[in-house]
């Protein structure tokens, strides 16, 4: 068995090598693994938009493939290896839970290049990338504090990982910059994509009296509930205005296209390197959807904040900031470094809920 497998592997390797050298005009094969269905109109949908942007930009020079709804458990490694085995040169694994499987497969296929979204482990052939979505959250916080009459927002969280906790904190810091007494109620649904659960959580929050809603999950369901119940909300990952024409105030849009095109180009040029890219509004990885359903001055202020963050004049995590328990975290004028942001596992002062630990 072992011997046969060894032979097969050698043969496959030989084939792979010869394909790489002799047939230079072969299209570059680029693969994607999505955690949800591409029809989620959120996270996976936006990654697929990025994939389509690659196809459009490079035409015949590339060939793209994707596998959708790959669960973050034992199936992930097989799905990734399947792409690596079938001649893909560059593979994007687009969810945090694919981190260790990506590293494992990357070790076995040193000639294939991997890009893992939102993780922290890198290798010579594994780069990581992510968006500074918290920048958008800060803007949402300011808008929410100006729009909400009750001063209470509902926040639907997926999993209490640093990425999500950072978003809640940034939102609250934005809101507190307008109204220091602003409150947030959080519900965790323990899923990235579960429209039913997300909608239930949204309804529960509305019943508890929140009048503005936002979410860190992937479907438009919470926003649709906001629309039905006549309150305001924000789109997540994607511009969701068509699902909630009266309720959406803006949306944090993930725009992976430019980054994906840049990375494919790098592989084509032979200049691809590992490392980490964490881009925000400045790198166009994060966009704000048009500010709608808002008074003019609020929209203008939001645009101003957006410009300040983009230019680097404003960092959402600038001291003085205390932790939830009142202990000091950042001194006056001190800006949180990326390491602290990436591993964030505490709430800032002013959030009443307890962080699930």
């Amino acid at each position, binding site marked *: *068995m*072992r011997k*046969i*497998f*060894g032979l*097969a*592997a050698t043969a496959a390797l030989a084939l792979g090598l010869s394909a790489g050298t002799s047939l230079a005009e072969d299209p570059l094969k680029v*693969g994607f693994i999505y955690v949800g*269905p*591409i029809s989620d109109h959120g996270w996976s949908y936006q990654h697929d938009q990025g994939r389509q942007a690659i196809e459009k930009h490079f035409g015949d020079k590339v060939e793209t*493939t*994707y*596998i*959708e*709804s790959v*669960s*973050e*458990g*034992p*199936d992930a*490694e*097989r*799905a990734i*290896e*399947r*792409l690596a*085995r*079938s001649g893909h040169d560059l593979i994007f694994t687009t969810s*945090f*839970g694919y981190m*260790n499987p990506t590293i*494992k497969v990357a070790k076995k296929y040193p000639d294939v290049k991997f890009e893992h979204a939102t993780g*922290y482990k890198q290798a010579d052939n594994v780069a990581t990338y992510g968006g500074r979505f918290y920048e958008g959250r800060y803007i949402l916080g300011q808008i929410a504090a100006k729009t909400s009459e009750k001063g209470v927002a509902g926040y639907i969280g997926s*999993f*209490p*990982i*640093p990425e999500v906790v950072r978003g809640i904190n940034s939102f609250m810091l934005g809101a507190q910059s307008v109204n220091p007494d602003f409150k947030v109620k959080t519900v965790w649904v*323990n899923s990235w994509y579960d429209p039913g659960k997300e909608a239930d959580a949204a309804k529960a929050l509305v019943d508890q009296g929140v009048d503005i809603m936002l979410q860190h999950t992937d479907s438009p369901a919470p926003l649709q509930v906001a629309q039905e119940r006549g309150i305001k909300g924000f789109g997540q990952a994607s511009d969701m205005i068509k699902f909630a024409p009266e309720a959406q105030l803006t949306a944090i849009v993930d725009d992976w296209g430019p980054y994906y095109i840049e990375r494919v180009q790098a592989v084509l040029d032979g200049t691809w390197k590992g490392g980490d890219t964490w881009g925000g509004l400045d790198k166009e990885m994060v966009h704000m959807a048009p500010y709608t359903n808002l008074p003019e001055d609020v929209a203008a202020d939001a645009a101003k904040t957006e410009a300040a963050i983009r230019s680097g004049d404003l960092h959402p995590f600038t001291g003085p900031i205390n932790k939830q328990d009142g202990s000091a975290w950042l001194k006056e004028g001190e800006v949180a470094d990326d390491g602290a942001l*990436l*591993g*964030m*596992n505490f709430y800032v002062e002013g959030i009443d809920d307890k962080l*699930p*630990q």
Partner: protein
Amino acid sequence: MRLVLEKRAEHSRLMTVVSPLLAIGLSLIAGSIMFVMIGVNPAEAIYAFFIEPLTSTWSLEELVVKSAPLVLIAVGLSVCFLSNNWNIGAEGQFTMGAIFGSIIPVLFHGFTGPLALPAMIIMGALGGMFWASIPAFLKTRFGTNEILTSLMLVYIAQYILDYLVRGPWRDPDGFNFPESRLYEADHTMWMLGDGRMHFGAIFALVAVIAVWFMLTKTIKGFEIKVMGQTPRAGQFAGFSRKGIVWFSFLISGAFAGIAGIVEVSGTIGQLTPVISPGYGFTAIIVAFLGRLNPIGILFAGLLLGLSYIGGEAAQVTLGMTDKTTSVFQGMLLFFVLACDTLILYKVRLVKPQPTAGGAHERV
């Protein structure tokens, strides 16, 4: 007029053998129609689904990796279902097995050597048995419905896992991300071959043979079947009703628990919030697809595994969406179960009878 299913007086032995093949044939036909409708060459699609995964050692090994936990859990469940104990909570027993087994690599990672792995497996089995003993206790002591209790315990187990990997068992070097430390080499399941295939496959095979032997060659097997079909008759024969509840829950819990720790130490290499794509629930389908017969379950597990692996292959080679592949999997299951039903039952058209009580009649 309405349709009724009527039990056949006797069923054809020939059809019992032919029916799975018939079902596969029917799903190929129905599937082909669907593939044509979405503009995919049906021959290519069927090749990608059923043949391509069997053509390379890698995908054969992957097939074993995917099917082994299904078979192992389903064999345990078959003992439950045959004895009329409805353990729906194998997913929770799987999770508890993974948690108990992981006590060693997470908390006592210094305990290495050849004994570490067997100890983990025993702990895993104990974890699964412990979790299965709760519905068994509630059923024997209070007459609680085990379908409900075993199912609810799944969610509890998943939340315990979630709590552990986010809290006390979180990897100290993991930047606060929800996962345990990566297991040491001594805590990783023995591998078979160069790929991902590990010793879990052997456990599944041993379980199939052991349960087959028990069911067909021993008094215990007879007892299980009698207590499932006519518990009153069984009690006259001196079989204990409570005893069989405990026995079937503990054995299926142990198998699910072993599957859990084997999956975590063999395939994933650490505890994460999600450790199973629903193996414990899919195994229920596998158990019935295999007609609660261990040998049948082995083939059913492989067939279901093949349809997953093939579905993924079809996504890559033909650019199909996962919706299409899951519709095709659904068709396959539908035809297999429908064909099986028609071995035991026949369909008859009944004319409504104009009697006074007719309106209340139910079949």
